[in-house]
């Protein structure tokens, strides 16, 4: 029978967007746990109940994966147009990493104003970790991969369009970007 601790670890695995580490589990639960045994129990349970997922241990921690036998269907889902598109947030994150690399997640979040997820970009091999920042907390540094350069046909990251060039391009299209009227709109309707 699965304990409450099992269920909490399971919930953490479901919610995590990056590999779940021993340290994270201990921080969340505030107690020491035998993560390996919990994972074994959960995997046994998934087997028994034929739930189409399995917990895998990789270098960084534990992740949930769909079972291999469902790949044919999942592949179709991914290849169906519309489902594989880079999301707006992933695109923004990628743009920031490309231009500001090596860059930390807090820096990316500060520019976007929201928390960013690297998972998809890491999975698609568009970005990778490039060591750690020397500052407080030693956050991970991210940069683009060689696959990124290859895909966009770049020799080096310096070949990205310069911000000045982009500015000029925007100017030409300015007429298509009307500014929002900002006048004080309160109207005394009795007049």
């Amino acid at each position, binding site marked *: 029978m699965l304990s409450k601790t099992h269920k909490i670890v399971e919930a953490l695995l*479901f919610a995590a967007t990056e590999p779940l580490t021993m340290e994270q589990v201990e921080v969340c639960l505030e107690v020491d746990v035998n993560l390996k045994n919990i994972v074994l129990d959960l995997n046994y349970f998934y087997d028994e109940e034929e739930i189409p997922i399995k917990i895998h241990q990789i270098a960084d921690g534990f992740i949930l994966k*769909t079972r291999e036998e469902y*790949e044919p269907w999942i592949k179709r889902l991914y290849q169906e147009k519309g489902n*594989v598109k880079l999301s707006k947030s992933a*695109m923004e994150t990628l*743009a920031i990493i490309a231009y500001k690399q090596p860059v930390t997640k807090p820096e990316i979040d500060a520019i976007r104003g929201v928390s960013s997820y690297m998972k998809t970009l890491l999975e*698609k091999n568009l970005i990778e970790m490039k060591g750690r920042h020397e500052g407080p907390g030693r956050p991970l540094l991210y940069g683009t991969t060689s696959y990124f350069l290859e895909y966009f046909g770049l020799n080096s990251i310096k070949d990205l369009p310069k911000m000045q060039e*982009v500015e000029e391009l925007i100017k030409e299209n300015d007429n298509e970007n009307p500014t929002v009227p900002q006048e004080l709109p309160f109207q005394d309707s*009795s007049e």
Partner: protein
Amino acid sequence: MSYKVKLDIFEGPLDLLLFFIKRDEINIYDIPISYITKEYLEYLDVMTQMNLHLAGEFVNIASLLIRIKVRMLLPSQQVEDSEELEDPRTELVQMLVEYRKYKEVSSILKKIEDDQLNLYYVTAKTDNDEIDPDIFLSDIDLLDLGLIFNKLLKNIPKPSYYNIQDSKINIPTQMQYLKSLFIEKKKIKFSEISTHIEDRIELIVTFLAILEMIKSRFITVSQKTIFGDFWLNKNKEETFNVIQNS
């Protein structure tokens, strides 16, 4: 009289009026205009005394309230037609009733937001080696990346929602202004200066200017009660300089 005012709890003049209506259990369709106008103006008075920027919208509603009050005081000349005469309050009531609906909706949305943010998306990886990453990227090209980054740089979120406009005043100009006030007077009440101040930045700059002037011994400051108004007193020996500077 000095107050600490938590202004940010009101979203605008209508929100403030709704607050009075709720607090005093007023029937929104039968608002005692004299009373509510008095409450409203008192509040604006406190805001002004605190030298807080009074948004134009607050003043607009104040004048609307006063107009309604006047119209209600006027004796209706045609008694027979009085039933057909429109209640001067109608427009205000409609505004309040409409705004109140959306205020209610926004509190419902707030609750839904709270609930939703407690739920996290479930993610499982897939062994997607066979999935062509090129499809994934098919929607963007190099220029898109540049455009997205450019847009982000321009829109780096500000730490607050307030729209702070560039203040044209600085400490030297404000000092000049204050000095000019002392040409005719030896003593100036701070509240006299502050009534002309339009926003917080200006208030802060004025304070800094005053501090500078104390430091340079142009003026001294006296205050009778804690948190009370204070006087700026011109130092005698500086009189000559002022005339020169002006």
